[in-house]
């Protein structure tokens, strides 16, 4: 394991500190190291619904990279690939509350759901109204009442962006929650890994993959995927991912879509654009149009090589909210 780190136990603390220093115009870091979170510079916006997200670290820029005007009010980084505990979530919720309540945006993992649940209870005791949206866009996982259900992956960024814009334009908690739920209902993702990643404190790759194998249906925590197949061309791999996503979303002729190709951290941008080109052609073959595009490293798994494909069905309101100004370190336009 070769990494640009010092103490494996201090990776999150040191990197969040560097992040906060580098972007002090946009964010501030909490002072209490036992309740680490990142929030908007300037604090909660009075009267605006606050947006809080968080989860295990190692997915940067998710979530701290999306703190700022038009998106999140606070982000809570846990240990690498481990959901944060309730205390910092509670503290972040307090910091994000402008009096209009707070939306928790939670990726659907048992740990994240349980810890945010407890934090929400604690926040209610502070008289903060909390609503929660649980993002579950990963079609690699069979959804069922009897399982933990689908995971939340790259679609989370779109929930955060669009709900963030709704809050910014003044929607109330009810409406912001409705918008977030709508985005989650219309977004699907699936990923592939060409290599595993190595969690600093584990010191070993999260799984072993042969030189000629890839994992289809990977999560974002270095979990193995749905199936292991022989290495294939970008077009073939994209075919697997896009077909699963578009089938599940029932993409049909006339649909207006947002296409996101997300890098897992170690894949060159050039490769993401090759995937994008193929995915877009496949959507157009179905008669849909790609109205908005997002290509880059947004929800990563440390240095994993691989990518995920996300498709969101747009309507006019969602498109307007997506286009609305956003000023964060990782997503920035219109202002």
């Amino acid at each position, binding site marked *: 394991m070769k990494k640009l780190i010092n103490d494996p136990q201090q990776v999150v603390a040191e990197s969040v500190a560097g992040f906060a220093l580098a972007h002090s115009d946009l964010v501030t870091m909490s002072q209490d190291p036992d309740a680490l979170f990142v929030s908007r510079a300037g604090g909660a916006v009075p009267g605006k619904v606050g947006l809080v997200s968080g989860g295990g670290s190692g997915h940067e820029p998710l979530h701290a990279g999306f703190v700022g005007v038009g998106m999140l009010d606070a982000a809570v980084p846990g*240990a690498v690939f481990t*959901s944060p505990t309730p205390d910092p979530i509670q503290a972040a919720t307090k910091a994000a509350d402008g009096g209009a309540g707070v939306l928790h945006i939670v990726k659907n993992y048992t*740990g994240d759901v349980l*810890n945010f649940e407890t934090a929400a209870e604690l926040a209610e005791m502070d008289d903060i109204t909390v609503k929660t949206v649980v993002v579950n866009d990963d079609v690699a996982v069979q959804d069922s009442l009897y399982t933990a259900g689908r995971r939340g992956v790259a679609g989370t960024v779109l929930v955060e962006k669009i709900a963030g814009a709704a809050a910014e334009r003044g929607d109330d908690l009810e409406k912001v929650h409705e918008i977030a739920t709508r985005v989650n209902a219309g977004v699907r993702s699936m990923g592939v890994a060409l290599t595993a990643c190595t969690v600093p404190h584990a010191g070993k790759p999260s799984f072993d993959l042969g030189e000629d194998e890839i994992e289809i249906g990977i999560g974002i925590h270095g979990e193995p995927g749905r199936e292991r197949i022989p290495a294939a061309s970008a077009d073939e791999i994209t075919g697997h991912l896009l077909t699963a996503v578009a089938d599940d979303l029932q993409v049909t002729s006339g649909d207006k879509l947002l296409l996101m190709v997300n890098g897992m951290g170690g894949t060159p941008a050039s490769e993401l654009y090759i995937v994008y080109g193929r995915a877009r052609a496949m959507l157009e073959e179905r008669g849909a149009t790609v109205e908005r595009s997002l290509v880059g490293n947004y929800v990563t798994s440390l240095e994993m090589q691989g990518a995920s494909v996300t498709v969101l069905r747009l309507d006019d309101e969602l498109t307007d909210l997506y286009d609305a100004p956003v000023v964060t370190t990782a997503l920035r336009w219109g202002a």
Partner: protein
Amino acid sequence: MTTLDVTWARDWVKASAAVVAEHRVDLIDLDRAIGDGDHGENLDRGFTAVLRKLQEAEPETIADVFTLVAKTLMSTVGGAAGPLYGTAYLRAAKAADGQSLDAAGVADMLDAALGGIVARGKAEVGDKTMVDAWSPAVAAAKEVATSGGSAGAALAAAADAAAQGALDTEPLVARKGRASYLGQRSANHRDPGAQSTALLLRAAADVAAGGRR
């Protein structure tokens, strides 16, 4: 020993920290196979904090010891295991409100812990989670209590049953937790949370038997 007191509770916590540190890498490896490779790290971080807190606080009752463990795990572990073990110890604290525990008290305490885990995680036996270790452990302790055995014997039976339960998770296909994402591929691996449960209950029994402190 026929009953267990606060010394046992404190020693169990110390032994838990030791056993988790010792098996940190094993638990990480189990979790790497069907999860995200952090279970050993998470519990180690948690019990290291618990140990520190225990030295500072010197709790005087079994319930206070368990409450301290609950709160500390809840606020340091994160992930799925943090809230689940946290709730388990919290419910155990409520159940163990006297000065000492006999076999029936042990069984009630374990049953309460299991109830907490199920309340939070909604898993059933056979879902390939820590419930598959806790559930037979509770049954075994109850049996000892019914047949008039000692508290130590109840813990020993619970530990044995939990170990067997952890082993029995191997063929299962996971339906809860992170391993469920793997579907069929989760079979032929032991569940890390069931394994850590077996380790913790073994430590409890060993300490009760005077073997480990």
